[in-house]
């Protein structure tokens, strides 16, 4: 067991695409943790989706041996944190497992919103920050300019900033020496009752739950009995060890150490991120601070394209939940879409990933309804309900008031785009909370925004309006009352619950018009006129008509090629089968998807 003063627990935090994973690859090489033969890009990103999207979803820890210039060999526990706003809580837990953070900034991009957000989290966790300008090998690199931004934000001295290239390896060794010098060793009490923080858990089909832990006080050993302080679950340690970078079993993990823990837990719910592991026989009095239940922010209905896939979807969700503790779901029925589930997600990315995994890993074809947030609805009878499905919103006369979740958003952008960004935020009902210059030409904007206004296309809009230069991060800040109404969509005079939405009263008409217009474009012409109406209560705010189909094929069927005609008809029949039948109207899959992209802005 390494002595505490020779341990350094640290992490790398960065904005997406600032080269964190590549830098981690170089560190693995320099410390010979991975042989040349085993090396592959983004070594620590284990899921396919992580590699494809270039983002880290799950935290990972790796234990490295680093022979420093002072002649001693240090044990590095390098913790890779998730890199997306949906996983802010997970990031904050991972940071708590560290004493220091390497803050990576791209030499050509400069400080971005996530850099700042992560920095704030790291400062809250009281970490020693080592600022690093990365990608200095790029032709467009402006390391001095970026260093100035860092000084401005962090108050660092110029000599405290490191310049590296994760690609070429330049400057990486110097950085590691700085980690030894500047990151303090852990200071837990080895004699106190055991307390270990779970900063991530994954599910393995063969071994059950694998938790990544930081032992804060005391120690944990093989076969000891442990207790999860939040969930109260008790288990016996089956295996304990470090990631080097693959699992290496050990007999014991002492105070200050980071490693993995396998204890026969079968579901991630029982080993929640943020929970404290203690010794069941000699339990700690108090858990480590800051645990909270995963809280879904965004909700959507997921329905199988083919009704008979419902059991398959249920099984897939049950399996997925084993390795995604944040995923919650319950059965739901839609008049339009049949049997499905309402799912709660940490955010939009979490939703996309979940859907992608369901389709890819379980081979399901799904229809998703528009994502929505959870509204707190105060009823006239005094009770309060949470509405996460627009069609569950009670009639207006039963509603006293509605509050919606809001977020504090941090936007960083070159100053020339401030005008357009303010317009965007205003259109999304944002309230400016503050603005200051990071450097002469880069500005930090803080806005309070309703979460519902940013879950659709806010990020895309932000990028489009700033030619990709602006960056965004946000955190939930509770509920705000708002004047909201339920907008219903009627196809052929029948309300279609899957298209209902909760929108701000002032924007409801425009939203309704945009949605009706979009659906008019997407619903193929039927044998009769199909009216499409948007309504608030009984008031129709928009009306479009899909005109009846006048003609199909009047072409020549030449030279007796009957086979071709029959195949064409078969194909058309198949196309019909792939549509959802709503009343007597056939609605294609794309209509549901496109409805997700309908905004509430005037065109």
């Amino acid at each position, binding site marked *: 067991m390494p002595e505490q003063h020779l341990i350094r627990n640290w992490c790398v935090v960065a904005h997406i695409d600032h080269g964190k994973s590549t830098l981690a690859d170089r560190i693995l090489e320099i410390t010979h943790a991975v042989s040349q033969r085993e090396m592959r890009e983004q070594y620590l990103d284990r899921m396919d989706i992580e590699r494809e999207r270039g983002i880290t979803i799950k935290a990972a820890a790796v234990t490295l041996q680093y022979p420093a210039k002072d002649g001693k060999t240090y044990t590095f526990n390098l913790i890779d944190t998730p890199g997306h706003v949906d996983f802010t809580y997970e990031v904050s837990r991972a940071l708590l497992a560290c004493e220091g953070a390497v803050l990576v900034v791209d030499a050509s991009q400069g400080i971005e919103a996530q850099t700042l957000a992560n920095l704030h989290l790291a400062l809250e966790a009281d970490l020693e920050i080592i600022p690093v300008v990365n990608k200095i090998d790029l032709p467009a690199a402006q390391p001095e300019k970026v260093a100035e931004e860092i000084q401005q934000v962090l108050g660092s001295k110029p000599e405290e900033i490191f310049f590296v290239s994760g690609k070429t390896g330049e400057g990486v060794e110097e950085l590691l020496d700085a980690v030894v010098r500047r990151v303090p060793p852990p200071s837990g009490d080895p004699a106190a009752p055991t307390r270990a923080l779970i900063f991530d858990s994954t599910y393995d089909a063969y071994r059950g739950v694998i938790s990544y832990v930081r032992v804060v006080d005391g120690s944990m050993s093989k076969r000891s009995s442990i207790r999860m302080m939040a969930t109260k679950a008790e288990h016996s340690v089956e295996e304990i060890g470090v990631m080097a970078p693959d699992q290496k079993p050990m007999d014991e993990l002492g105070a200050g150490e980071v490693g993995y823990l396998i204890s026969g837990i079968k579901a991630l719910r029982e080993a929640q991120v943020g929970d404290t592991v203690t010794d069941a026989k000699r339990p700690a009095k108090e858990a480590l601070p800051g645990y909270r239940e995963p809280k879904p922010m965004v909700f959507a209905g997921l329905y199988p394209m083919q009704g008979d896939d419902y059991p398959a979807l249920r099984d897939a969700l049950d399996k997925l939940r084993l390795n995604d503790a944040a995923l919650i779901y319950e059965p739901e029925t839609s008049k339009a879409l049949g049997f499905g589930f309402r799912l709660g997600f940490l955010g939009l990315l979490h939703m996309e990933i979940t859907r992608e995994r369901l389709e890819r890993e379980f081979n399901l074809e799904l229809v998703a309804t528009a994502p929505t947030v959870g509204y707190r609805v105060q009823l006239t009878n005094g009770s309060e309900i949470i509405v996460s499905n627009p069609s569950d919103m009670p009639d207006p006369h039963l509603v006293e008031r509605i509050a919606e979740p809001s977020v504090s958003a941090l936007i960083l952008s070159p100053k020339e785009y401030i005008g357009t960004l303010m317009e965007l935020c205003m259109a999304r009902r944002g309230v400016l909370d503050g603005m200051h210059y990071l450097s002469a030409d880069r500005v930090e904007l803080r806005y309070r925004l309703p979460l519902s206004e940013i879950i659709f296309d806010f990020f895309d809009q932000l990028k489009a309006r700033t030619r990709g230069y602006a960056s965004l991060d946000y955190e939930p800040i509770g509920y705000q009352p708002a004047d909201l109404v339920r907008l219903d969509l009627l196809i052929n005079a029948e309300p279609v619950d899957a298209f209902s939405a909760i929108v701000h009263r002032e924007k409801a008409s425009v939203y309704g018009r945009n949605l009706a217009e979009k659906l008019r474009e997407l619903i193929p012409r039927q044998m009769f006129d199909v009216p499409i109406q948007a309504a608030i209560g009984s008031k129709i705010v928009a009306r479009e008509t899909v005109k009846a189909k*006048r003609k199909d*094929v009047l*072409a020549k069927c030449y030279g007796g*090629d*009957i086979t071709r005609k*029959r195949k064409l008809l078969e194909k058309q*029949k198949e196309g019909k089968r792939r549509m959802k039948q709503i009343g007597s109207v056939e609605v294609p899959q794309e209509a549901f998807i496109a409805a997700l992209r309908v905004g509430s802005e005037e065109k």
Partner: protein
Amino acid sequence: MSTVAERAQHAASLAPAFGVYVHVPFCPSKCPYCDFNTYVGLEPLAPAYLHALVCEAEMWKSRHELAEAGSYFIGGGTPTMLDEHLVASTLKDLVSIFGAAEDCEVTVEANPETCDASRLAFLREAGVNRLSIGGQSFSNNVLQLLGRRHSAEATRRAVREARAAGFDNVSLDLIFGMPGETDAEWNRSLIEAVALEPDHISCYALTIESGTAFGADVAAGRMPSPDDDVQAVRYETALDVLSAAGYRHYEISNWGLPSRHNLIYWTQGSYAGLGAGAHSHVDGVRSWNRKNPRAYAESPTAMREGEERLDDRERAVEWLQLRLRLVDGIDLNEASKRMGRDLRPAAEALGGIVSIDGDLMTLTRRGLLIENEVAIRLTA
């Protein structure tokens, strides 16, 4: 008053027991909308190709019990661009193989610019008794848009020449709905067509097929797609003008004295298709040849590319899909029997699109325009 079954059989009963389709894959130029199996500049192959047709005919005759041919249809392509002597001698050979019923219909397709008097007279003399002229439009503007090389005047002349050559069964093909064509131009085309008093008129909606010049133009945004609503209006104009002129509407796209050969197709009848890419339906098997004319000329009896034998259910579905095109209508009893279920509820759900009179179901004016939809709904 005829019975329902008789009325439903009216046009269908004119279909011969067996017919022969001959594909001539040569054209003087490729029209930008055409996706038929035709080639420009391949005419030197013609003698060998025509000889190969006869070989294939002999193969059919030797392998199958075939009724005496009640129709021949020499299509393409532009059969009239070939030496008429060659065409006539090929026809003679085919008749010696398949025979010819007493009232046998022998059609040759012709482009107006190839209809000179002596050629037509020769063909008529050789036994051709029906000429199908691809006039397409009587607006020179539309003809140009369609990439046709002839003028409206050439079509008028061709019909006159055909009459002079002794053809008492002349058909005229028209295409409607070309982007750029106006309602007035289409109206005039119909009126001029009627004024020529052909015995038969076909009207087809321009359809953009992939793999054609128009297909590429539409895909690249150089040309708009034909407008469904415009084409619907044009079709209704055709219904009005042609019925007012006394042409009997017997098939969705066809008016006048029925083409007995084409009736074979709509009644699931038997036909041998000779030539590159030709389709056949003999002894319940649909088969088709590979498309390459050179390969065909070399080995006409080894050209089969594919075939299919439909099961009873598929056959019933196909029967219904085809028979719906015949304007006389469908006997619901017979259709239900073939489909193995009562079609009446499905038909009754199509109010305004089909009309039901006792057991006879016919497409309404609206229904004619969406026959595919009706076919899908009745056979789903």
